[in-house]
């Protein structure tokens, strides 16, 4: 579904990614773990078009998308829930969710009725968002904002979701709640690339994982394989 080959990208003169390759098959949750500054977020940003890769290919459902703008890639079925959640603070929770489905809804009127069944699904998954649907997204707690960011990505009905550090800045009990939701989404068959500092939790939900180090993939394998790898255990799972 998502195939990344030999991706290079960076910011200005400083190159962060020096040839990263990874595959996300349909219906799989793939974790991307690694130390701070290893290039996990940059990988996601280069895949979704927030920064332009300098080299390499990104195939989304077989179509080369590297070099396209972020909005074009989003319209092709990639939903990126970015680091720091980036909800639209002044807009209501419901408007945030509607905007998640922006590219498949009519622009003027009738969009609300068309999105109603999908909104219902999101509200069933996140009852807290239903309670706060008319509240400005900026007034939500960190955990609620993370739920909203995930819900907004789901609203796009995407082929692949990139989820960057859902646990960032959240209390441990909320982090468990977020991972619980990821498990439920996994049962529903979503395709997800997950970047996470909490490598242990990430490996619990993932079908496959990549360990990133200095801008390239250092180790890859199923969670069981990584749990047998002593270097990985020492560095990330200890």
């Amino acid at each position, binding site marked *: 579904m998502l195939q990344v080959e030999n991706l290079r990208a960076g910011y200005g003169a400083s190159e962060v990614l020096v040839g990263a390759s990874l595959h996300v098959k349909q219906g799989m949750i793939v974790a991307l773990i690694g130390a701070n500054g290893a290039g996990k977020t940059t990988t996601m940003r280069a895949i979704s*078009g927030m920064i332009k890769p300098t080299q390499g290919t990104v195939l989304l459902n077989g179509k080369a998308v590297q070099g396209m703008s*972020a909005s074009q890639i989003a319209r092709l079925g990639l939903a990126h829930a970015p680091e720091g959640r*980036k909800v639209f603070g002044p807009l209501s929770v419901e408007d945030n969710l509607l905007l998640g489905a922006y590219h498949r809804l009519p622009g003027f*009127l009738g969009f609300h009725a068309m999105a109603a069944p999908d909104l219902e699904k999101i509200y069933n998954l996140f009852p807290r968002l239903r309670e706060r649907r008319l509240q400005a997204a900026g007034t939500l707690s960190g955990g609620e904002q993370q739920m909203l960011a995930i819900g907004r990505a789901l609203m796009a009905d995407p082929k692949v979701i990139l989820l960057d550090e859902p646990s960032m800045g959240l209390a441990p009990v909320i982090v468990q709640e977020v991972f619980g939701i990821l498990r439920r989404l996994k049962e529903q068959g979503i395709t997800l690339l997950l970047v996470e500092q909490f490598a242990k939790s990430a490996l619990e939900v993932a079908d496959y994982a990549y360990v990133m180090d200095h801008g390239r993939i250092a180790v890859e394998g199923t969670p069981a394989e990584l749990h047998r790898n002593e270097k990985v255990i020492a560095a990330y799972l200890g």
Partner: protein
Amino acid sequence: MNSLIIAQMAVSGALMGLVYALIAYGFQLTFATSKSINFGQGELVMLSAFFSLTLLNLGAPYWLMIPGGLLFGVVMGLVVERACVRLTLEQKSEGWILLTIIFGLLGFSAAENIWGRDDRPFPSPISSDALHILGINVTPVEISVAIGVFAVMGVIELFKRKTLLGKAFEAVSADRDAAELMGISATHTIMLSYGLSGMVAAMAGILISPITTVGPTMASALILKAFSVAVVAGLDSGFGVVVIGILIGVLESLTSYYLGSGWRETPGLLLLILALAIRPNGVFGKVSIRKV
């Protein structure tokens, strides 16, 4: 008697103030999406007024001239975005400041060459015979200014709140990168904001011209006060520009009555200086709060 004169001055000042507010609103539209504004906005008002006058002189009926003039404004707004703003924003430079000023200068010369330097009357089918309401003289033309200003701002605000496209506009204003990730093209949204801003400028020109006449220099007086209104009110509150616009309009009308017309610019400029010194985000501006 005296209080009646004050009331009279206040009413006609407030109506002028609404036009300042409308032009300031045009600044807000583009600032919201792109953090840039068109410093040639006054010339856009003037060019649209001249264009509309030409339509009338060519025999177009008044009510058909309005959409024609507004369309001209939209096109000019898009020209400004394409020629003066887009490339500089892509390079993250502030070059749009200089380029939009140059656009204004070019527009000014073009108007002088095409339409001449003279101020010309702008015919309107709306009567300018004063009505007496509670002892105050108000002309239907003046009332049409108020209606026009609220109609245009009302339609745009409805668009922003009620349509998905409008919500996308707000999303780009709130977080451009995140909006892109939703499949919203920031470039198209910025084009839209410049188109709307041009339309607002054209509306201001069409509304004010029957009262002030049309001439190449009509912009300079308007634009300075529109700037004051935008800065004092802040660049993100449509309600704020209306309140501050009316306030500045009333103040300058009273100042010119009591101190002489040479002083009419002072209240607007004094408020501008005060606002920059005390509340740079504007009276109605949101003080940015960052949650870490």
